[in-house]
């Protein structure tokens, strides 16, 4: 003590003192947290410096974690954009708004508020948008993609849409996100209040599905959405149920199916199974060079890769098949390819209904060439069971 008095400030840092100081800081922090004095309410906005710091960290993080993301070259594909738009209307627009559709006042009192995408999207690179949509952002309201590990293809559809979003007119948005339906169809929310209406799916539930799949089950915008018209009812119900509980992985279909009771899923399966199968008007034509090779695989399988003949389960065949197995006749080649590739990893990356184990064992052994050929073959067949 005498040294302190004699020579001004002279506190010697010893290990013991440093340790005690550290404990004191931690104790003070815990005491502050315990006291409840920190105000976590969203109504009190961040200080500007906090706001700057959090965003600075977030931007740096997104930049770093999007290193190595490979951007696909089909982001201008209308079908991909339409698929992303269909999901954007239910999954994103309620917070971020959409062209001609103002955001909910709720978002003004969020902290941080969801950004206006018209202004923000151009500030990000494509790979960075992908990282944000796929993984979400901690300490904000931005969720990660449902099934982010399995369905990067779906994440890209939203990114493709986002790239077109700045400057998009309300009419363009309507065509992309609503198809032939109106804005009232989004989410089928009206329906929930109205209760069951009897046989068939509720009008507003069907309208929500129809934004993408059409009421006729033929989809729209080329091969943006699979043909579900005339599909086996058992298969459609199994697929919807599997989506609803996350056994079939999709960030688009899982939220859509999970908000409906099983009775509605059954009614939807029945509705779409009863629609006449047909080839959508603007469906792309499968590559004729691949059809013959695909037919051979579908008929005979491939011994070398252990690929069984597809048609034993999926037809076409004159005799009856297990109705839980989907018919593939006239399905879009791009959809079939995507589904087969989802099985490439041997783990249950595609998921599905109670019979998914069969395809899990079969599909992961197929080569990309076999997949393309088989998809082209089934796409070339006339639709129907």
């Amino acid at each position, binding site marked *: 003590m005498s040294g302190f008095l004699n020579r001004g400030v002279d506190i010697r840092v010893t290990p013991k003192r440093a340790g005690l100081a550290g404990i004191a800081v931690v104790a003070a922090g815990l005491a502050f947290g315990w006291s409840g004095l920190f105000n976590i309410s969203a109504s009190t906005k961040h200080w500007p410096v906090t706001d700057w710091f959090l965003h600075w960290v977030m931007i740096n993080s997104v930049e770093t974690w999007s290193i190595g993301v490979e951007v696909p070259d089909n982001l201008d594909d209308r079908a991909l954009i339409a698929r992303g738009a269909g999901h954007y209307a239910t999954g994103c627009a309620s917070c971020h708004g959409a062209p001609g559709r103002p955001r909910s006042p709720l978002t003004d009192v969020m902290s941080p508020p969801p950004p206006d995408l018209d202004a923000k999207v151009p500030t990000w690179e494509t790979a960075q948008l992908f990282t944000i949509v796929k993984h979400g952002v901690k300490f904000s309201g931005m969720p990660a993609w449902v099934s982010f590990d399995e369905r990067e293809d779906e994440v890209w559809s939203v990114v493709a849409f986002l790239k077109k979003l700045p400057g998009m007119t309300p009419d363009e948005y309507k065509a992309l996100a609503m198809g032939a339906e109106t804005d009232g169809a989004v989410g089928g929310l009206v329906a929930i209040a109205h209760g069951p209406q009897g046989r068939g799916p509720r009008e507003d539930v069907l309208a929500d599905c129809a934004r993408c799949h059409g009421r006729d089950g033929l989809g729209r915008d080329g091969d943006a959405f699979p043909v579900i018209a005339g599909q086996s009812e058992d298969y459609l119900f199994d697929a919807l149920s599997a989506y609803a509980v996350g056994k079939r992985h999709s960030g688009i279909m899982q939220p859509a199916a999970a908000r409906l009771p099983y009775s509605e899923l059954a009614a939807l399966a029945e509705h779409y199974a009863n629609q006449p199968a047909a080839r959508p008007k603007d469906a792309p034509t499968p590559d004729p060079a691949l059809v013959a090779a695909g037919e051979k695989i579908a008929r005979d*399988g491939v011994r070398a890769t252990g690929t*069984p003949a597809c048609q034993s389960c999926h037809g076409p*065949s004159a005799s009856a098949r297990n109705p839980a197995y989907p018919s593939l006749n006239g399905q879009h080649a791009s959809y079939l390819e995507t589904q087969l590739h989802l099985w490439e990893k041997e783990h249950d990356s595609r998921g599905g209904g109670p019979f998914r184990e069969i395809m899990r064992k079969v599909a992961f052994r197929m080569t990309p060439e076999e997949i393309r050929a088989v998809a082209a073959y089934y796409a070339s067949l006339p639709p129907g069971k």
Partner: protein
Amino acid sequence: MLIGAGVVWTIVLGVAVYATRVKTDAHEEHVGKRLIFWGGVVFPVVVLAALLVYGLRLMPELRQPGEGLRIDVAGEQFWWRVRYRPQNGPEVVTANEIRMPVGERVEFALTSPHVIHAFWIPTLGGKVDMIPGRENRLVLEAEKPGTYRGVCAEFCGASHALMAFDVVVMEKPAFDAWLAAQAAPLPTATGDLARGRDLFLQNGCGACHAVAGIEARGEVGPNLSRFGARKTLGAGALPNTAENVVRFIAETDKVKPRVTMPSYPALPRDDLTAIAAYLGSLK
């Protein structure tokens, strides 16, 4: 040869007993050297050289082609694809069981499409590797009728230990009759068995499994044309009973880990039983 081995064994043990019990003190140096020269160098060289010459003279006989019947066996994961090629008469494809006539040199052509297996019927002969991209030959002659067990003798994956087969050695006339019967058409299933057959087809089993006479032509998995006559199921994984067939189809992966065949837990018990009954009827 057994007598010779007995004599050598007796001499060695006799010398050991003599050295440890009878004459325990040291030999003179020149006696010891002479013992090592004659007993440790000359004797083994002469005996082993004679055995080598004898053994080498037997080798060409082993390499001689068989006497008619040829059987192609491919090691799959984890089962055996078997094809009989008789000199006269049609080929017969089956799986996981081999029948051969007694007293005849049968030639096996051994292959593998994926990984190395080894074909081994311990009672009948040595093991021979089945190597992808190669065809190895083995000639076996069974001396006595009976049922022997064959196994995979090279680790080939998770279910290597569940990759076995029965070898049924039959009298020549019985074997010829059996082989001829294999090529004959199967009786058409009726009644409950017809339901089992229809379920077999509707659920797509024919994509991988062939059954003669119906629209099931798959070659990915074992041929099931005469499945009911086999003693075991799943390449020796289980005894071939209807109950075990149901279990094998419903939880294939649990019975045989990492097997290629998918499990069918979603099939109703009733349907599984019908399919099992149908398969059991295929004899």
